[in-house]
């Protein structure tokens, strides 16, 4: 199987779907001539033209709003936000409009819309360019949240999302774009709402997604050296959420650690911990642990940023706390 980098897998998914369905088009900042800030849309304007790979002004609310208007009239737009941070500028269009319209109009309007945006810290981008805010959108009914961690997952999930009838926030991670993984040459689609056990183990379950999935896998390696077998579960999509796989894993291991790059307060980890105790209170051997970002705006200084963000070592510490 050929190896692709994550950004190349996204590019392939976009290319294939643009070629398959002429209603699909891309709009966003620097997506056309420049080929995307992270090279994700490289070559697509040359192949599909400037009408279907459309450069826009820096106007995130309008980018998302225009995509909504196009989606409600039969097109299948993919709006790219250069980074998740700028999605905050488009919050009104995402939360007040895209997430609400199907419901508040009694099902008469459908929005086959994908909003792609990369997030994440780790390279000293400071407070306004390091957001991992997926939990904000999981808290909002009416929009799906998909957050793949590998080239294989990102391609198969993105193709499914582009064919979906619902608005979807598709969150990539800036630090994952250059990572490599096997991607089949033949076409494949991955279903939403299906988690994957990325590493089996019997002693503790680590739930992690996006870049933290890779930190969790590193942690599992370190723990294996200590004789602790960690099972690593990647939900891949946070809405819909495959609770069955997560509960099944924790029911076997009886211990759980949730690792996320977003803030700890009222984060996705808090939601998962609540659900685990609702379903498995009497089966748990130890309190559910959360590993997350420090509740501070992300600092610039390298040492402070490393203190603020969670990593494999923190995951190991959390696991040791409940397994020793």
């Amino acid at each position, binding site marked *: 199987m050929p190896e692709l980098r994550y950004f190349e897998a996204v590019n392939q998914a976009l290319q294939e779907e643009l070629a398959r369905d002429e209603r699909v*088009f891309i709009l966003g900042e620097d997506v056309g001539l420049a080929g995307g800030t992270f090279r994700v849309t490289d070559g697509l304007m040359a192949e599909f033209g400037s*009408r*279907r790979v459309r450069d*826009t*002004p820096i*106007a995130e*609310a*309008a980018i*998302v*709003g*225009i*995509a*909504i*208007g*196009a*989606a*409600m*009239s*039969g*097109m299948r*737009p993919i709006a790219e936000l250069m980074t998740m941070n700028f999605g905050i500028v488009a919050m*009104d*269009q995402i939360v*007040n*409009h895209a997430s609400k*319209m*199907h*419901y*508040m*109009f*009694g*099902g*008469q*309007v*459908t929005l086959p819309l994908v909003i792609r945006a990369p997030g994440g810290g780790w390279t000293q981008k400071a407070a306004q360019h390091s957001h991992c805010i997926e939990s904000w959108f999981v808290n909002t*009914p*009416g929009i*799906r949240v998909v957050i793949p961690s590998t080239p294989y997952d990102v391609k198969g999930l993105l193709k499914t999302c582009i064919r*979906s*009838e*619902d608005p979807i926030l598709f969150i990539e991670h800036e630090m994952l774009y250059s990572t490599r993984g096997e991607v089949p040459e033949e076409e494949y689609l991955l*279903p*939403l*709402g299906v988690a994957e056990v990325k590493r089996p183990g019997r002693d503790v379950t680590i739930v992690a997604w996006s870049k933290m999935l890779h930190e969790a896998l590193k942690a599992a390696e370190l723990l294996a050296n200590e004789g602790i077998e960690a099972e690593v579960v990647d939900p891949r999509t946070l809405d*819909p*959420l*495959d*609770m069955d796989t997560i509960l099944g894993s924790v029911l076997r291991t009886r211990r759980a650690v949730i690792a996320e790059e977003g803030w700890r307060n009222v984060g996705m980890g808090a939601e998962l911990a609540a659900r685990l105790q609702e379903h498995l209170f009497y089966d748990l051997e130890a309190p559910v642990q959360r590993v997350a970002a420090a509740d501070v705006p992300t600092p610039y200084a390298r040492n402070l940023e490393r203190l603020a963000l969670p990593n494999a070592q923190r995951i190991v510490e959390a696991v040791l706390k409940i397994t020793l």
Partner: protein
Amino acid sequence: MPVPLADQLQLYRNMALIRRFEEGVAEAYAEGFIGGFTHLYIGQEAVATGAISAINHDDYVIGTYRDHAHALVREISPRALMAELYGRVTGVCKGKGGSMHFCDPERYFMGGYAIVGGNLPLAVGLALSIQMRNEDRVVMAFLGDGASNQGVFHESLNMAKLWELPVIFVVENNFYGIATDVRISSAFNEIHRKAQGYGMPGHVVNGMDVIAVREECEEVVKYVRHGSGPVLIEARCYRYQGHSMTDPGRYRSQAEADLWRKRDPIPRLAKQLVQQGLDASRLDAIQREVNEAVQDAMRFAESSPEPPDEALYEDVYVESYGA
């Protein structure tokens, strides 16, 4: 081209229907049948009526939270609209939307939106669809004077003109953004001239004169349909009631309100019709017909069932993924 008599009668009928519908809404609101925020269009009837009469039935209309009139002019049945206001399952959005969120894509009424200016990028997106598919359609987007101070107004005008999209922005300038006078909220309150900042034609029209609105819009629609790019029209008008049902409107003087009521668009057109030789009894018959339609709508709404409990979780998503 002068507006034919039959069309003038239709304009009269639609304005009379809007006025009577809104009076019925006010009564039902006072009796507790309607909840939430409800914004009446009384006084502004000539704008929606004249503007929408200038487009085809398959051109898109997209509105704001003050959307009852636009839906009525799009010929959505008063029964379905009143039932929506009563929160009944027979409502145009199954009782899920209410006053501010009427919608009927089959009649190309693409919804009412309650975030000021929020519908404008959607209008541009509808127009982008039209352009990408080479359709013979235009978009008519309604907004208020207040929306012209929002960021997305400027983003939307810029991108509509940048891509030469077929949109007509109709500003219903009733001079108040809720309670705040346009003169103390907009640095430049000749709203139609804001279009010039984007190289877009901007026109102003007397929004209390339905014939003037119709004639202006016919010209503009021709220009936009021809592919010449977007246009903004400012229609100056006045809402007689408060911003919403809970607003007593203390920020406006009686003298100002009296002045505008003298310009009322409905008697104005009635007078013109009689001058053209129309028998006044025809207008009385129209009034009786719309009175009956509104009464029928209220009876229908009151006797309709509320949405069933199962509806709570319906239509959140199209696809369920078993999760």
